[in-house]
C-alpha cells in the first residue's frame, strides 16, 4: 500500500498519538518498574522493597495515608450522596445553576483551595493539624464525589421508578431498590476520583498540617528529589501504581457491566 492510500484510511490517523502514548505513557511507566528493581550499583535487586517493608517510618506513613484516604472517601460519600441525590431529583428541583455552583470549585487550583482552607482555619483561630487535613481533603475532593453520583442518578430511566411505584413500592423502597443500586457506578467512579488522589497528595498535607503529618505522596516526593534515593522513590511509586491498578480493575468490572448494558 502506498503512503497516500494509508493516509486515506482514517484508522491510520491515530498512529501519531499511538506513538506518543508508547513513548510518553507506556515507556515511563515501565521505567518506574526498572528503577524500582535497580540498586544504586545498577544491578537487579529487591532491596528497595525490603527497605520499605522494614523501615517503620515508610510503613507507618503508608498505613496512615490509606486510613486518611478511606476516612476522606467515606466522609465524601456520606456528605456528597445526599447532595447529589437532591441535585438530581426533579421533585426537589433546584436548577442547573445549583449544579454548576457545586462543580465550580473543581476548577480552582487545588493549592489555592488548600490555602483558602488554611485562611478559614486562621480566621476562626483553629489549629492546623489532623483536623484541618481531613477537613481540607474533604473540602478539596467533595465536588469530585458529587459530580459522578449526580450524573448517574440523573441518567436513571424514570420509567423504572414509575414501574416500581405502579407495583406498589413506597418512596423508601424506590430509593433502596432502584436508585441506590443504579447509582453504584457513580459511587465507584467517585471513589476512584477521591481515594486515589488522596493517598498520593503531598503538597496539600504539608500546607494543612504545617508539615507535621506526612502522607505517602510526600515520602515519594522526598526520595525522588534526591538522586541517590531515586530507586527507592521509584519502588514506592511502583507500590502506589499497584494500588491504583487493583482499584481500577475492581471498579472497571462495574463499568464494563454498565457499558454492555448501555449498548443494548
Amino acid at each position: 500500500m502506498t503512503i497516500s492510500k494509508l493516509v486515506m484510511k482514517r484508522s491510520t490517523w491515530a498512529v501519531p498519538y499511538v506513538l506518543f502514548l508508547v513513548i510518553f505513557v507506556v515507556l515511563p511507566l515501565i521505567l518506574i518498574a526498572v528503577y524500582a528493581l535497580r540498586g544504586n550499583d545498577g544491578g537487579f535487586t529487591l532491596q528497595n522493597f525490603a527497605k520499605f517493608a522494614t523501615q517503620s517510618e515508610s510503613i507507618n506513613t503508608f498505613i496512615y495515608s490509606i486510613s486518611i484516604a478511606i476516612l476522606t472517601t467515606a466522609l465524601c460519600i456520606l456528605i456528597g450522596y445526599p447532595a447529589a441525590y437532591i441535585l438530581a431529583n426533579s421533585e426537589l428541583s433546584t436548577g442547573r445553576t445549583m449544579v454548576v455552583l457545586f462543580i465550580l470549585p473543581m476548577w480552582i487550583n487545588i493549592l489555592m483551595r488548600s490555602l483558602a482552607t488554611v485562611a478559614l482555619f486562621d480566621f476562626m483561630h483553629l489549629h492546623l493539624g489532623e483536623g484541618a487535613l481531613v477537613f481540607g481533603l474533604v473540602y478539596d475532593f467533595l465536588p469530585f464525589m458529587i459530580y459522578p453520583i449526580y450524573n448517574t442518578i440523573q441518567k436513571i430511566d424514570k420509567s423504572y421508578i414509575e414501574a416500581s411505584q405502579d407495583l406498589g413500592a413506597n418512596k423508601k423502597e424506590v430509593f433502596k431498590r432502584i436508585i441506590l443500586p443504579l447509582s453504584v457506578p457513580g459511587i465507584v467512579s467517585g471513589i476512584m476520583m477521591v481515594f486515589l488522589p488522596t493517598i498520593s497528595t503531598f503538597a496539600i498535607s504539608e500546607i494543612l498540617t504545617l508539615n507535621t503529618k506526612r502522607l505517602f505522596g510526600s515520602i515519594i516526593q522526598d526520595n525522588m528529589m534526591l538522586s541517590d534515593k531515586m530507586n527507592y522513590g521509584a519502588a514506592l511509586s511502583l507500590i502506589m501504581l499497584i494500588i491504583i491498578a487493583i482499584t481500577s480493575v475492581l471498579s472497571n468490572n462495574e463499568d464494563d457491566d454498565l457499558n454492555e448494558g448501555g449498548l443494548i
Partner: protein
Amino acid sequence: MIKKYLAKTYLYILLTILYAPIAIIIIFSFTNSKSIGEWKGFSFDLYASLFSGEAQHASTLSSAITNTLFIALIAATISMFLGSLAAVGIYNTKNKKIRKSIQFVNNIPMINPDIITGISLFLLFVSLGISGGYISVIIAHIVFCTPYVVLSVTPRLSRMNPNIYEAALDLGATPFQAFKKVIIPEIKPGMLSGFILAFTLSIDDFAVTLFTKGSDGLETLSTYIYADARKGGLTPELRALASIIFLTVLILLIFINHRANKLKSNNP
C-alpha cells in the same frame, strides 16, 4: 413541602462551607495586610501592586503567570489537534482488540494520580538526559490533556454520517482537505470543549509540573504558590490574583454552560 425545605437547607449549608474559604480570600484581597484575618481598611492596593509589578517578588510572580498561560496555550493547542486526529483514527479502527487497547492506554493518564504521571515522565527525561524546562513541561501537559480531547471529540464522531468523508474523497479531495472541510466542521464543538478542558487542566496542574520543570528556575503559578507556602508566608498579592482567577473561571463556566444549553435546545 418540609422535605423540600430541608433538602434546600442542606444544599445551602454545604455551599456556604464550600465557598467560605474562597469568600474569605476575596474579602481579604481588598485590604493591604500581611496575613488573612487582619483587616487594615478597604483598599485596592493589592490589585494595584499586582498589576504595577511592585509586589514583593513581582518579577517571579509575573513570569510565573506568563509561563502558566504560555504553557497552557501551547499544550492545549497541540493536544486539541493530536487528540482530534487520534479520535478519528480510533473511531475508525475496525479491529476491536486494537481499538480497546488504544482506549485503555488513553485512559491511563486520566486514572493515574498526578504524582505518578509526574514521576514516570521525570524518570523518562532523566534517562534520556533531557534537562527539565519548557519542552519537558509542555510534553508532560500534552500527556495528561490529550485523553480528555479524545473523549470530548469521540461522541461527535458517532453522531456524524460516516459516508461524507468517503464522498469527499470520491469527489477528488485529498485526505487533508477532507479532514479540514468535512470532519473538522462536524467535530468542532467537541474540539473546542476539549481545548477548554485541556487549557484549564494545564493551568490547574501542580504535581506534574513540579517533577518536570527541572532546576533552572522555571516556575508556573502552582509551583510558585507551593514554594511561597513552603516559605511560610503567602505573598498578599496572591489573594488578589486568586480572586481574579476565581471570577474568570466562574464567568467561563457560566459561558460554557450557557452554550451547552443553547446547543441542547437547538438539536433536541
